[in-house]
């Protein structure tokens, strides 16, 4: 049987991916963040997951206003690197896992969720930034990835409660997959930031710390909040922490934080997290 061994949290800002491409991990600006990736890379090398279920969002790269899926699952055997307009990042295509993605789609639909099925879903910085910070891709990506993209940009977007429950449905799906696979769930984006309007640049490190505390101990209380609560506290773009609620929903109620880092950068409060799953049934 497949099982989820833990959950990770990572930013997905494009500037972080650009820093990887320029080998700037040790510059004064980036070191506080990339030092936070070291324990995550070590943990992944130790756990050696077969599959990462990656919760992220598209940034008007693969989706446009013509079709905005609320939840979308990438089921391809291999995911292309998207060109967001300035050239593709120098990364090889990312291997997918069609069998598990197929099962996942079947299972969550049976469970009351109705994601879009995507046979071609070029990945933008929302997925590539965390993958390129957490894994080496030479000679090959060491893991298969199932991207699950959630609409966080065009309202109405799914509620925090819905995302948390969707994560639980993903857990039930993984737990009912017949092959013996180790799966890690990865929540991306956030934490506090706003990239629009006169309030552009809003960051609230106190709220971010509270969010990370509650994500471990009392995620239900975060899931009970409204979008507006996140927007007021953390800025409009911080509402994408519903992607972290998907991740947390896919873990058992009891988890242990084995790593946590925070970096208050120019435009964003970056959070990094490893939550080990202490077992137990899905909600």
């Amino acid at each position, binding site marked *: 049987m497949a099982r989820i061994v833990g959950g990770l949290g990572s930013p997905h800002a494009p500037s972080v991916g650009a820093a990887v491409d320029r080998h700037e991990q040790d510059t004064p600006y980036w070191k506080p963040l990339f030092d936070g990736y070291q324990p995550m890379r070590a943990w992944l090398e130790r756990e050696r997951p077969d599959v990462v279920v990656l919760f992220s969002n598209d940034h*008007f790269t693969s989706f446009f206003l013509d079709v905005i899926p609320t939840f979308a699952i990438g089921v391809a055997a291999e995911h292309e690197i998207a060109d967001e307009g300035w050239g593709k990042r120098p990364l090889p295509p990312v291997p997918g896992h069609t069998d598990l993605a197929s099962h996942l789609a079947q299972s969550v639909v049976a469970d009351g969720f109705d994601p879009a099925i995507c046979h071609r879903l070029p990945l933008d910085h929302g997925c590539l930034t965390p993958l390129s910070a957490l894994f080496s891709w030479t000679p090959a990506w060491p893991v298969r990835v199932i991207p699950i993209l959630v609409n966080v940009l065009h309202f109405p977007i799914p509620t925090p409660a819905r995302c948390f429950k969707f994560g639980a449905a993903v857990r039930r799906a993984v737990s009912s997959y017949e092959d013996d696979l180790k799966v890690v769930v990865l929540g991306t984006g956030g934490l506090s930031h706003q990239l629009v309007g*006169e309030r*552009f640049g809003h960051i609230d490190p106190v709220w971010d710390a509270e969010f990370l505390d509650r994500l471990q101990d009392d995620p239900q209380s975060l899931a009970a909040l409204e979008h507006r609560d996140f927007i007021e506290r953390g800025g409009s773009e911080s509402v994408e922490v519903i992607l972290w609620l998907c991740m947390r929903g896919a873990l058992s109620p009891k988890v242990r934080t084995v790593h946590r880092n925070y970096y208050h950068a*120019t435009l964003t409060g970056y959070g990094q997290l490893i939550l080990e799953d202490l077992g137990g049934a899905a909600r």
Partner: protein
Amino acid sequence: MKESERRFANPCPGTYLLTVSLAQQGYRLSSFCRSLMRPENRAAFRADEVGYMRAQGLDEREIAMVSARDWLAMVRYGVNHFLVFRVAGTFGVGLTGAAAQMRGETPEEFKRTRRVWEER
């Protein structure tokens, strides 16, 4: 647009969410922004900004927003900021430049509000 949607789209001061009616109003302008993801389109746009925008079907009000590099006006009109950034990027304006402009500050003033800053 209903008043309730307008209120929803502006949940706190200086904050703008993209809703269905706004996105529909901004559809053509958004399509124009998206077209600039291709280098050949960026070149055509740079060579003849207004001609390119007319060919994309933009009306005079929309053309004026882009010509004025008024990123905030585009957002308020119904274009998601990630699409606006693709136009700004075509003019060499990055995130911090767009931030300063939307806040009504010079880049230097904006920099002074930041805890850390990456010189590029």
